[in-house]
């Protein structure tokens, strides 16, 4: 067991930090809440800057335009990006974190050549069309129908909760191609161009008040058979590959950010007043913050363990589900602590004092984490059945 970064890792960190320091000021400032086009422009500009500097697709194989970095370098990358306050994967989290990797693993050479460089250069933004109104946790019961017609599939149905659909160019879409087969056996994974005729995006309003996700109505949308990834009716298996990436990597930068936020919260607690003292003088509150910090430290080490296991064996260990379940519930408790520290300032999403609004917004945002990408209940089922071997 070795937790020391290697000299290579440290050299990489120094280089990266120097690059971020000069690159970040060139990026346009953060955008207004509902200005999605500006948000896309900013996120893709940053992606292009990463690409030009050789930092795009940090964990993608070099053959596909990535950096092919060692797993430890990937952690260093996320640490430095987040510490510097540089943009996260942003609106293209689907393209960068799971559609891209799925294409690497499962697609044809033509599909790879068509999409992978474009994703890395910030030219293509992707969304995920998996969930439907009647197929959430029970995703395999999805109904969105695709019927073969010559060289096309003709698709009709509805998707829901499609994050960033309004700024996406492509969608990883799960459709039902064989309604008579058992539910896991009649699904196909397709690449849907969002500008195809018959695609209708209708934004939904989240608890934050913004329209981060949408409904997707598909009405006789024609998609070439050439856009299929994997075999017809083999889409469930491909979707599992997508999930392994989604659950494996998407929380890493989130977690680094959480550590930064917790430090920030402590700073706030040390200055907000409670009678003649500060919130930090409240022994109960302080103890709970200490407790949460210990848990977050442990989870970060758990990530290192998972990453190390993956580097050794090629597959992520039990870590991914454990980290997803524990982290998402922990970050909500940390959000509760933030509201307790802010006290009456928590009534406002505008800053009452420095960053106070951000904590309130975060408390709302993290409500989604125990639901999206496999709810906490589903994670517990997975751990119980697949890891502990309990009967269904």
């Amino acid at each position: 067991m070795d937790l020391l970064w290697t000299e290579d890792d440290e050299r990489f960190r120094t280089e990266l930090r120097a690059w971020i320091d000069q690159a970040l000021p060139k990026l346009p400032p953060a955008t207004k809440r509902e200005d999605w086009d500006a948000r896309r422009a900013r996120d893709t500009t940053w992606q292009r800057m990463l690409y030009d500097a050789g930092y795009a697709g940090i964990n993608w194989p070099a053959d596909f335009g990535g950096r092919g970095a060692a797993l430890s370098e990937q952690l260093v990358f996320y640490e430095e990006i987040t510490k510097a306050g540089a943009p996260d994967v942003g609106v293209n989290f689907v393209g960068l974190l799971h559609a891209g990797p799925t294409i690497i693993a499962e697609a044809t050479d033509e599909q790879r050549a068509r999409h992978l460089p474009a994703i890395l250069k910030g030219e293509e933004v992707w969304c995920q069309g998996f969930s439907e109104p009647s197929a959430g946790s029970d995703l395999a019961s999805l109904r969105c129908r695709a019927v073969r017609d010559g060289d096309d599939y003709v698709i009709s149905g509805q998707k829901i909760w499609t994050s960033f659909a309004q700024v996406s160019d492509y969608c990883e879409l799960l459709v039902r191609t064989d309604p008579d087969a058992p539910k896991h056996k009649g699904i196909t994974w397709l690449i849907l161009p969002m500008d195809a005729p018959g695609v209708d995006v209708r934004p939904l309003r989240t608890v934050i008040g913004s329209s981060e996700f949408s409904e997707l109505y598909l009405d006789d949308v024609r998609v070439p058979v050439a856009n299929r990834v994997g075999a017809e009716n083999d889409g469930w298996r491909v979707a599992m590959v997508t999930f392994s990436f989604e659950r494996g990597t998407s929380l890493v930068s989130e977690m680094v950010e959480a550590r930064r936020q917790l430090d920030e919260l402590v700073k706030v607690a040390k200055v907000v007043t409670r009678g003649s003292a500060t919130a930090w003088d409240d022994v109960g509150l302080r103890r709970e913050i200490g407790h949460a910090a210990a848990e977050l430290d442990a989870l970060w080490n758990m990530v290192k363990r998972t990453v190390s296991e993956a580097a050794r064996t090629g597959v992520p260990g039990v870590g991914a589900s454990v980290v997803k379940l524990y982290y998402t519930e922990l970050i909500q408790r940390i959000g509760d602590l933030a509201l307790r520290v802010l006290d009456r300032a928590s009534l406002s999403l505008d800053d009452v004092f420095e960053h106070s609004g951000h904590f309130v917004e975060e408390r709302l945002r993290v409500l989604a984490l125990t639901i999206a990408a496999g709810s906490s209940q589903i994670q517990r089922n997975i751990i119980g059945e697949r890891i502990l071997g309990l009967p269904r």
Partner: protein
Amino acid sequence: MDFTLTDDQVALQEGVRKLCEGRFPMERVRALADAGGVDRDLWRELADAGVFSLRLAEADGGAGLGTAEGALVFEELGRALVPGPLVWTHLAAGLVPGAAEGERVVGGLQRQEEPFLVEYPDAIDVLLAVDDDGVWEVDRSRLSARPVSWPLDPLTPAHVAGGLLRGERRGVPGDAARWRLEGAVLTGAYLLGMAAALTDMSVTYAKERQQFDKPIGSFQAIKHILADMFVRTEVARAAVYAAAVNLDEPALGPPGRAVAGAKLLAGEAATLNGKAATQVHGGMGFTWEVDVHLYLKRAWVLDTTFGTADDHADAVAGLLGS
């Protein structure tokens, strides 16, 4: 950075697990309650396996291994619920003659812990007290001691002691500070092993026990309790191993925060898993016959040694934002 066990570490872990399975089956562990918690022959076998001398330099008769290896060994001892003042004797190896070889059984306590409950009073040869000024060998002849007729944990017999005297110095303040950190990590590792054992025994029971014509493990209410037991244990494992590595590797920075987090999370994993295991076992869980209570009681005992959960949460908080 490679946070997986080396082949040597895996071999060590397996070796100690086999030793525990062979020499400390639960019937024998239970029987030790009548022997004051320690059987001299078994204690020497632990010593021969290197449990106490593991971290001493090879020149001093040890194996020259680190706290990481110590944690792996103590995790296995905890899994098997091996009783006795294992951590204290391990810490005393090299300072108290005979400790490393298993010739003398060394117990201990923190001087701040009033009232003073001396564990394993009939088994120990030497009683140490740790305070900010160092490590002291207590003169037990000058100690008033009232036996506890009914200890919480039948495998942790105790005396209530009065008028604790300092006695002879065995270690300097630096030793005391180091012992607190190492003691917390090794106790955390022991608790980690207990948490894992509780998960295993509960999962096994939930697969066997049938109600409503099904194994109770098929009910989500039970399945989710078991999933949480597993998750808690794995998170504690990351914390304990990381703290141990941190103690071995000065370049990783001061170990205080990692150590506090490790003892905190391992203690909670063991106590929460003890309570959960009782629930999963139903009425059986409330019997003397089923082992769950022995683990839960030990978890409560160990939560009071080398810092409580609250102490450690406060310690982490104290190191935040600084």
